[in-house]
């Protein structure tokens, strides 16, 4: 039984409206919507779907290829995991979350540039509202302003492109922009880049991240860092790897911005003392890396980075939010030994952190290898060197956090459980199970990376790129 992919958008949207009518049971409507979507996402028809019955280049279309399939599966499952872990926090925002989920599914699925704008707006506004949960109106306002500016820039860029090409359909746009000169394309592409960069957390549009994510709780943190972030990056990938593939000039600008984001994110994370801040800067760095990969055309490694980051941040942000709530502090120095009685959560957190650093036997290693191989096969050394230097810094700050959270104790004395900050349970049973499952997924896909790779890109490549840059199954006595 295969369903029309528009249902992935229509169902949460419809349920959002219903949730407003039946406010008393809105949390069950929320649960229903997310569960239905998470199941439905595996049973939707692949290919292009027209909306409204109009011929495709002129009407709106939804595109479900391997790339967007990976995207929608990722965000719907992550949304499900998020409410399993922190249902209580999500309850009062039920319609907002449902609408936001519809928006994100739409963003990834759509094949039309203006439709993309509309869904980006929906997603953005739901994000602004969610961010208000942190009770820091100045930060939310900041986010709102930056987001609005971004949207306006995107729209302006789109208008310029529409003016020249007369179409809003992505496929047709790719064709027609091929006939335009680089100088003509420069401004619109930059404007569109700014629009998408806001949500994709690229500097300098990422100014909102510290305020919003730094004040998030165990639900909103996960939503922003894993779900919204991944959706935005998938959109970035769609646009800049397929529709508006940047030529050399624009490409250099975009890649430079992305790499600067990566470096600045890692450096900022290194100096942060607050757990959530470290995590949000690490997210910014990973976004920068993914954006650079997308802009260079290495789609498969980029998707691996996005997936790895999303799952890792799911575990880590929910734990960080929960720790902040239980102990009142975000400073990881003051949270020494928090994993003392929370072994399972601690192990999951450790696995997530180590996977983000790219340690072997975990999914992040496969992602890292692909990233490095993609560049080194091409003969570029600068970017891999930057990536590896960033990884050293990343490893340093994550290990510092892990050591602090596992082993409390004064310097010069043996690690002592009595010095730990407390032994409150970080998650409820269901939350712990969800987090453990995520960690197990990371480990399994690290032990069987080629299977994981095949699942993500059944055709071998995504958006027409070369697919996995390496295969880890090296036959006896030979190379791949």
């Amino acid at each position, binding site marked *: 039984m295969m369903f029309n992919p528009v249902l992935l958008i229509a169902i949460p949207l419809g349920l959002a409206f219903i949730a407003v009518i039946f406010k008393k049971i809105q949390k069950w409507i929320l649960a229903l919507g997310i569960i239905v979507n998470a199941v439905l996402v595996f049973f939707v028809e692949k290919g292009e779907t027209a909306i409204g019955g109009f011929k495709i280049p002129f009407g709106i279309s939804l595109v479900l290829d391997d790339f967007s399939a990976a995207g929608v599966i990722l965000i719907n499952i992550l949304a499900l995991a998020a409410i399993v872990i922190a249902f209580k926090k999500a309850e009062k925002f039920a319609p907002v979350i449902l609408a936001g989920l519809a928006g994100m599914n739409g963003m990834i699925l759509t094949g039309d540039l203006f439709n993309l704008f509309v869904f980006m707006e929906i997603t953005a506004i739901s994000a602004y509202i969610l961010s208000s949960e942190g009770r820091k109106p100045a930060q939310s306002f900041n986010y709102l302003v930056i987001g609005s500016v971004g949207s306006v820039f995107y729209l302006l860029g789109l208008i310029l492109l529409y003016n020249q090409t007369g179409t809003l359909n992505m496929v047709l746009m790719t064709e027609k922009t091929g006939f335009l000169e680089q*100088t003509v394309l420069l401004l619109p592409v*930059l404007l569109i880049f700014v629009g998408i960069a806001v949500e994709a957390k690229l500097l300098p549009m990422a100014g909102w991240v510290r305020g919003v994510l730094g004040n998030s709780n165990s639900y909103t943190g996960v939503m922003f860092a894993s779900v919204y972030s991944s959706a935005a990056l998938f959109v970035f990938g769609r646009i800049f790897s397929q529709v508006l593939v940047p030529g050399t*000039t*624009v490409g250099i600008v975009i890649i430079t911005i992305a790499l600067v984001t990566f470096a600045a994110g890692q450096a900022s994370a290194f100096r942060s003392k607050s757990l959530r801040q470290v995590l949000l800067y690490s997210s910014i760095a990973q976004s920068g890396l993914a954006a650079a990969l997308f802009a260079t055309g290495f789609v498969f490694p980029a998707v691996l980075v996005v997936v790895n980051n999303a799952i890792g941040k799911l575990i880590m942000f929910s734990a960080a939010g929960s720790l902040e709530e239980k102990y009142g502090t975000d400073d990881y120095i003051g949270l020494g030994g928090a994993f003392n009685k929370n072994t399972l959560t601690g192990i999951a957190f450790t696995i997530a952190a180590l996977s983000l650093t790219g340690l072997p036997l975990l999914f992040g*290693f496969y992602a890292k290898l692909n990233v490095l191989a993609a560049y080194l096969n091409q003969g570029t050394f600068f970017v891999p060197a930057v990536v590896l*230097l960033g990884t050293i810094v990343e490893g340093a700050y994550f290990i510092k956090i892990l050591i602090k959270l596992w082993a409390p104790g004064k310097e010069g004395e043996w690690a002592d459980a009595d010095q730990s900050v407390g032994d409150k349970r970080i998650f409820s049973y269901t939350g712990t199970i969800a987090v453990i499952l995520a960690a197990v997924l990371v480990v399994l896909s690290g032990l069987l990376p*080629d299977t994981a790779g095949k699942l993500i890109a059944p055709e071998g490549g995504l958006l027409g790129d070369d697919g996995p840059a390496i295969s880890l199954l*090296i036959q006896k006595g030979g*190379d791949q």
Partner: protein
Amino acid sequence: MNLNLIIIITTAVALVAYLVSKVNDKAGAAMTVVGSLFALIAVFLLRDSIGTEITLLYFNFNLTVTGWYFALVMLMAYSMTAFFNPFWMKKLIYPAGYNFLYLLSMAGTLGVFFAKDFITLFVFWETVVWSSAFIIQMGKSRQAAYVYYVISAIGSMATLFAIMFAYGTTGTFVINDAFGGLAAYPGRAIVIFVTFIAAGMAKIGIFPFHVWLPFAHGSAPHTFSPVLSGGLVKMGAFVALLSVTAFPAYKIFGGMASFRGIPLPIYFMMALGAISIVVGTLMAIKQEDAKKLLAYSSVANGGYILIGLLMLDQVGFAGGLMHIVNHAVASAAAFLSIAAVAYRTGTTKMSEMGGMIHRMPITYVVYLIAIISMAGIPPMGGFVSKWLIFQGLADKGLLFIAATAFFGSIGSFLYVFRPLSAVFLGQTFTRDLNKKEVGVFMLFPMVVLTLLSLLTGIFPNIFLRVVTEIQTSLGVLPVTLAENTIVTNNGFLDAFKVFIVFGFGFAIAFVLFIARRKSRRVELMDTYTSAEFIHTRELLHYSHSFYAPFERLYEKAPDTMKLYHKAAVKISEIGNFAEAIFFGIKPARTVLLVMGTVLIGIIAGGVLS
């Protein structure tokens, strides 16, 4: 029984140890003993499978004699130290985790030594790194684990770069093929050589990566320091060996500038090893804590090993390989004896101990023989390996390095004697008067290691025959052995005869000792003080600031750790800067930044096109 099974069984035992430890931690620790002994015996029996290959998941293994040799050394360190585990469980915050990680890191080292391709090497290498980092943090210093990991990461990332670069150039991960294929790209080969060997250097603790050793070996749980020093640094030696053998360094760099027949890149690494010897020796002399002292001595000995291995010749290379065994055994024994003392007294600070020879005579003998071997004094094994290394250096005429090697040898007399005198000799402290020797379970491994030290010293050829096998398999001319003798260009060494001579001398001294009148025992406090009263025993025990005049000579020496601090501070500053500019909450400022970015983008685009 093949390698796959060994690794799988060891990992399984690790998991079982974890679960058992949750119930009874001593039982779990006993499982680590069982697991490591099993691995030791099983790998020993793999002797006949040498030369075969085997695959597990996506890992490919190649059972070489080199790998077998290294693996045995490592497993010996692990299994002997494991005997100490049950006694230290109550000190550990996570006894179950410790037991699990202990065995897991051991399984990891097996994978490293038998790796056929780089991915296997790297995966197992990193597994060892993080599992040992999580053990180190349970000890006395969290910062130790952090420094250990960061420096290890610097090395690992450099190696990963080298691996991927080699892959990008040659298209394969298989170690021999990938390195072999680099012969055609001498420029890239230098970069790959330097970055690849970086992980090995970081792991051995060669200058400037040596800063983590005193932290980690000094502050790790007492039962893990012997493994770190005796075992894990040898992993680095393995990588260094790969980088001159699998990577045909002499061939590739053959055309380049060379110093007395040694190409410059390799000579540079040897020079770093020489500096490590000097730094390690000098720093060891300064130390007040027995474990930190031994850690620095590991730095120095690591330098010897590196120099020996990099020479890749007939004699020095054999010396380097042999020193791996000797240093592992001696270092493990020394750390274990200090651990035994710490078990009884609760401290490793030398100024707080004294006269333990009366209370713990067997431990004393263990330590004595260990340090004799480390200092390179016959008839212990350390002498043979150092002799070989000296022979090699002299042969090649490498004056500077030989000078540092001799200096290190002499300096080692100074620092190995210090704990001996401070901890074991002299007068016993009041609170230690009723301490007893450690139990037989702890004595067993120490005695085994001591006997091994003696064995390598008296009959070194047993081990050297394996070394010749290694040399032949790597295409190096093997060192000449005859019966019990080692023959080199500059002379020969018959270790057994040396031992006889020493034994003879020892026997004479012993006879004299028995025959002479016994000396009169005098209490510590019974001493001439020119009418002053003395109250503190501690101040009269000669163990503090032993070599003060000598230490004053190099008091002002720069501290490498400061370099790392500066780097960390710089990164923090960049982070601060980025945060200040980009992450403030003034929306107006962000909008301006955005406009500015677009402007710059357009200008850049216009300029570039």
